[in-house]
């Protein structure tokens, strides 16, 4: 099943390709996030978090959020990215107030296997600030499309195991619930933390 969101993804990537995106970060020439010229306001979507509470656009307002698409049966990229985000949080926590209220949201694109209970155990491993959310495909799509993210369930292999291909980008959403910046893989905690501190300082 292909769950694609080509049209809006095209908008973001066109901006990247045509150079309308300003690079941020203190180390010119090194890996840098793609910062949108103006934050792209996110519209409504309706997911649930690891405690079964609703998670929609309003839960993104008033705080910075890092969003990452994945699934708990993902052995390689997901634990790697989650561990990197945990390092980002640890680095932010060394700066006064920088980590206050910042949330790290693991968006499971595998709702069949990732129940809220499963997500609760998963995100608890990464500590303070980490949330796990999921929902039906229509609502996951409502969010993914706006981020310019894709996911696709691969055919089932032996033993009922299957993989879910997914965008490996980390998305940064600002306190106005606007998509603010994209960090493409491979991710490095130090680079993400430094770039975030700069964006946080610049933001109104």
């Amino acid at each position, binding site marked *: 099943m292909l769950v694609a969101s080509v049209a809006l993804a095209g908008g973001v990537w066109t901006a990247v390709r045509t150079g309308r995106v300003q690079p941020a970060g203190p180390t010119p020439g090194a*890996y840098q996030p793609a910062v949108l010229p103006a934050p792209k306001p996110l519209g409504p979507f309706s997911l649930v978090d690891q405690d079964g509470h609703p998670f929609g656009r309003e839960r993104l307002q008033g705080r910075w959020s890092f969003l990452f698409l994945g699934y*708990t*049966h*993902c*052995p*390689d*990229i997901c*634990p*790697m990215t989650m*561990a*990197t985000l*945990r*390092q980002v949080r640890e680095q932010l926590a060394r700066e006064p107030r920088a980590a206050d209220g910042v949330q790290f949201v693991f968006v499971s694109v595998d709702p069949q296997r990732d129940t809220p209970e*499963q997500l609760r*155990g*998963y*995100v*608890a*491993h*990464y500590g303070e600030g980490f949330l796990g959310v999921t929902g039906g495909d229509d609502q996951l799509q409502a969010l993914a499309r706006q981020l310019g993210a*894709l996911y696709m369930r*691969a055919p089932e*292999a032996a*033993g009922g*195991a299957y*993989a879910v*291909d*997914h*965008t*490996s*980008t980390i998305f940064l959403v600002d306190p106005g619930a606007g998509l603010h910046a994209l960090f*493409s*893989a*491979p*991710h*490095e*905690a130090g*680079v993400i933390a430094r770039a975030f501190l700069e964006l946080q300082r610049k933001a109104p």
Partner: protein
Amino acid sequence: MTIRLALLVVGAAVLGIAADALGADPPVRVEDPWVADAPPVARVRAGYLTIENLSGSEQVLLGAQSPLFDRVEIHRTEVRDGIARMTAVERLPIPPGQKVALEPGGYHLMLLEPRAPLTPGGVVPITLEWAGGQRVEVQAPVRSPTDSQAPPGHDHSHHQH
């Protein structure tokens, strides 16, 4: 050059004979095996290691087993156009004299259905199964994936020697 090649071939032949005769290990060196830390609820884990083929002939990794998991498969992650895709790999050939790294974001051993909780500091025994029937057992400590993170864009698979 010709003499070196000839010596390599002879050396490989000798090694091959020795392995056949004694049922010994295949002529590979396995370095730095480790298993990525993940939440205890995770039903899958990734194992990583570097394999160097010391011989003059291709060595093929066919699979692996671990007493701590129901089954182990060889998988490969590829990130293309920003999308991470994972596929199963039936056989992993190691070309003569070369190193292949199983590392985050690339080839890995996919360890499925843990039989016991794993925590950082724990050790996972893994038996690598080679074409030709040989086995190599390694002890892979559990550690955070960020403890060994390569710099972005760094790729040290398929080294030429």
